[in-house]
């Protein structure tokens, strides 16, 4: 019991952090599925970067997917870390779409680095979302 009271005391020292953790958004299967979709699509789209016909539609599709993830996550309560990550991911994807829309040449390497970065980040986000409390 002494150990328990000590632990409670330690947690009470930083009430905001403990409150944030206690109120943490539970596992959301829709959020998790969206991130899995982004990760898999980024992997597939990266292989099509050398194809000039597919580059732009894939970039638009990825920007839309990451925007949907932001829109889905942003009003879930106590979810600020995921929302911040979602916004950063969306900025990465929007940057590729904007470059295609600007009409200038987009190098296959740049396209591949964009999708690789999105896949890598989506993988990390998905892992973390998967550990949310049930």
């Amino acid at each position, binding site marked *: 019991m002494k150990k328990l009271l000590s632990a409670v005391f330690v947690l009470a020292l930083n009430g905001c952090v403990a409150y944030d953790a206690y109120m943490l958004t539970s596992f959301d299967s829709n959020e998790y599925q969206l991130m899995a979709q982004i990760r898999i699509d980024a992997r597939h789209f990266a292989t099509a970067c050398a194809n000039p016909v597919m580059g732009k539609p894939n970039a638009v599709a990825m920007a839309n997917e990451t925007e949907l993830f932001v829109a889905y996550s942003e009003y879930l309560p106590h979810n600020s870390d*995921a929302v*911040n*990550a979602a916004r950063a991911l969306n900025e990465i994807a929007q940057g590729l779409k904007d470059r295609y829309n600007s009409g200038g*040449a987009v190098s296959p390497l*740049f396209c591949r680095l964009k999708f690789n970065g999105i896949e890598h980040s989506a993988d990390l986000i998905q892992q973390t979302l998967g550990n949310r409390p049930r």
Partner: protein
Amino acid sequence: MTIDEINQQLAALANCGDPQFAQAAQYVAQATAAAQAGQMSPQELTETLQDMQRQMQIIQDMGQLQLKETLNTVINGLILIAAAAT
């Protein structure tokens, strides 16, 4: 900061022992070399490096969330133990 100093810091980051940061350093080095070889425009390199900063932000946010998830598990465990003790 000179190019040599940047390269030294990249090498230090690549050998820091943290796989996330080591991979990031390798990514920066490859992107810079590719731009120097003409495979990417300077604007694309700039955006690629800005993406690195965005990815670092994501790593930081997910680290925070992971800590909260662990703390949540601890708190719920303590609540269960406390409830059982009463």
